[in-house]
C-alpha cells in the first residue's frame, strides 16, 4: 500500500536532485530545469499532504497550481534573461557571468 511517506520520500529525492543540479550545473538552462525540479518536488508534497491529512479541503492542490503558474512566469523571465545574456556574451555558462566579481 502506498502511503504518505512514499510520496514524501519521492518529494525529498526530487528536491535533492534539483538542489544538486542548482549547485553543480554550469549551464544556465540546466539550472532553470533544476529549479523546476525543486518546485515540482514541493508540489508533490503539497498534493500528497492535502490528500492524506485533509482529504475534504483542496488547499494544497490550489497551492500546487499557484506554484505551477509562478514557475511558468519564472521560466519565461529566466529564459528571456538567458537569451539576453547569450546575445551579449555568446555563452550560457554561468562561470562567465562574473561581471560583479571584484
Amino acid at each position, binding site marked *: 500500500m502506498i502511503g504518505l511517506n512514499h510520496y514524501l520520500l519521492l518529494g525529498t529525492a526530487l528536491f535533492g536532485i534539483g538542489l544538486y543540479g542548482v*549547485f553543480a550545473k554550469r549551464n544556465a538552462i540546466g539550472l532553470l530545469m533544476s529549479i523546476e525540479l525543486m518546485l515540482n518536488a514541493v508540489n508533490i508534497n503539497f498534493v500528497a499532504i492535502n490528500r492524506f491529512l485533509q482529504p475534504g479541503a483542496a488547499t494544497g492542490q490550489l497551492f500546487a497550481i499557484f506554484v505551477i503558474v509562478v514557475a511558468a512566469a519564472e521560466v519565461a523571465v529566466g529564459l528571456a534573461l538567458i537569451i539576453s545574456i547569450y546575445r551579449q556574451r555568446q555563452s550560457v555558462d554561468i562561470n562567465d557571468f562574473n561581471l560583479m566579481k*571584484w
Partner: protein
Amino acid sequence: MGDVISNAWLIPVMPFLAFALIGLLLHRWPKMSAVVSISAIGASFLLSLLVASKVFSGDPGSIYEMSVRWLEMPGLKVDMGILIDPLAAVMLLVVTTVALLVQVYSLGYMEGDPGLASYFAYQSIFAGSMLGLVVANNFGQIFVFWELVGMCSYLLIGFWFGRPSARDAAIKAFVTNRIGDFGFLLGILFLAIIFGTLNFSDLSARIPEYHNLTVLLPIAVLLFFGPVGKSAQFPLHVWLPDAMEGPTPVSALIHAATMVAAGVYLIARAFFIFSQVPQAMLLIALVGGFTALFAASIALVQNDIKRILAYSTLSQLGYMIMAMGVGAMTAGMFHLMTHAFFKGLLFLAAGSVIHALHGEQDIWKMGGLAKKMPITTWTFVIGALALAGVPPLAGFWSKDEILLGAFAGGFTGLYLLGSLVAFMTAFYMFRLIFTAFFGINNGGEHAHESPPVMTGPLIVLAILSAVAGFVGSPWMGNAFGHYISAPGALHHPANPSIMVVSSLLALAGIGLAWLIYQKQVVPAEKLRLRWSAMHQLLLNKYYIDEFYAWLRKVLVESGARALEWIDLKIVNGAVNGLAYLTQSSGRGLRYAVNGQVQTYAIWVIFGVAVLLAAVLMTVFTGMV
C-alpha cells in the same frame, strides 16, 4: 566730595575720544591729529588738577566712588567705575603731566615722521588706558586697562616696525608681559571665587577678617606676578631694556608715567591684600631689592645712553617694589612720583641728544655736548642729580624714605643693599654725564640745541624734578604721607643719619665717576682690562637673554619634538593603522566573494542545514 570729582570719569575718556577721532577721521592730517591728541591730554591734565586740588583740600580718608555694572554672571559681578582717593589723584596728576609733556615734546622729536597721526593716536590710547587703570575701582577693570596698556606698549615699541629689532622688541615686551599677566589673572579669578567681588572697597573691608593665610598667600603671590611683568622685575625684566627700540618719547612715557608705573601702582592699590601676608611681602621686598642691585650693576658698564637709563629704571622700580615689600607703601608711591618726573626728564633729554646727533646713542661717540646744548645738558644734570639722590632734589626725599622704611622696618640687609645701589646709581649716571656731555671726547661738536617745543618740556620736568620732593619733606609736614597711605603701611619718623649717609654715598658716587671719567686718574680702559671677566658678564646682562633663549630652545623645541613624535607616531599611526587594518582584512575576505551565485547558494544551504541540525538537536535532546 564735590561736583568736580563726579566728572573725574572724563579724565580717561578724553584721550580715548582723541584716539577714536584720530583713528576714524583725522589720520590723514598729522598736524590736526597732534593738536587733538595734545588738547585731549591737556584737558585730562586740567581736570586732574581740579580733582587733585579737591582731594588734597579734603580729608585724607575720604574717597569718591561711582560705578556702573559691566557684566554679571553667577558668582561674579564686574563694574566699570571710578575710585578717586588721594592715591589715584596723585597718579592722575603724574600720568597726565608726563603724558602731556611727552606729547608736546613729540611734536619736535617726531616731526616729519610719516606715521605721525598713528603715533599720536597710540599716545592717546596709551595715556587713556593708563588713566583708566588708575581710576579703576575693581580688579576686573584694572585688568582690562592693564592689558590695554600692554597692547599700547606693543604698538609704540614696535612703532618703527620696519626695523626687525623694533619688531622683536615689541613682541618680546608683549610676550614677557603675558607671562606676568597670566599669574595676575589667576590671582584675580581666585579672588572672585573666594570673595565673589572684585571691588577694592568691598575686598579691603573683607580681607582683614579673612585670616586663612594658606589661601591668601597664593593669591598675593599670583597677583604679584602682574607687577613683576609690568614693572619689569627680575626675572621678567628682559623686555624693558629692549623697549628702547621705540621712539625716545615713548621710552620716556613707558619708563616714567605709564606701563611700568602700573605695576607699582597695583601693589599700592591692592596693598590691603599684600600687607596681610607677611611671606608675600618678604618675597616682594626681596625681588625688588634684588632687581635694584642687579640692574644697577648692569647699568655700570652699558654704552648706549638709553640702555643706561633703561637699567636705571629697572633699578629704581626695584627700589619702589622693595619699598612696598618692607611696608613703606607711601615711600614707594612717593618714589614712583618723583621718579616719573626725573626719569621722564632724563629720557626726553637723552632724546634731545639723540635727535641732535642724528640717531647716535653710544655715549663714547658723544662728548662736549655741554657747550652746544646747554639746556639739554643742564636739565639732564638736574635729572641725574635727582636720580642720584642729591639733596634737596626730588629723588633724595623719596629714596631716603625708602631707605628709612627698610632700616626702620628691620630689613638691615635691604637697607645696606639700597645704600649700595644709591652709590652705584650716582656713579653710573655721572659716568654717562662726564662722558657724553663734558669729557675729553668731542663727538658732539656738530650738535645743536633742540627747538623750544622740545626744551620746554625739559625745563618743566627739571623744575618738577627739583621741587616735587618737598611735598614729602619735613618742611611741608610730610604732606604726601599724610594723604597717601593704606592699612598696614608703615610710617617712620625721619632719621637724619640715614639722610646724611645716603647723601654722602651719592656724592661719593659722583666723585668717583668724576675721578675716573673726567680727571682720568684711573683710566676706564685700565679698569675694564683689570676686571674683564666681570665686565663681560655685566656687559652681556648676566647672559639672562641668552639663558632664556636656551631655555626656550630646550623647553619649547624639545617639547615640540616630543609632541611631533606623538602626532606622527601615535595620532597619525592610529589613523593609518585603522586604514591598514580595514584594507588588509578586506584583502583577505575578498576571496570569499567570488561572484558565483552557486557558491553563495551552497553557503546558504549549509547554513540552513546547520541551523536545522541545531534545532533538531534541541528538540530531540529536550524530548529525551
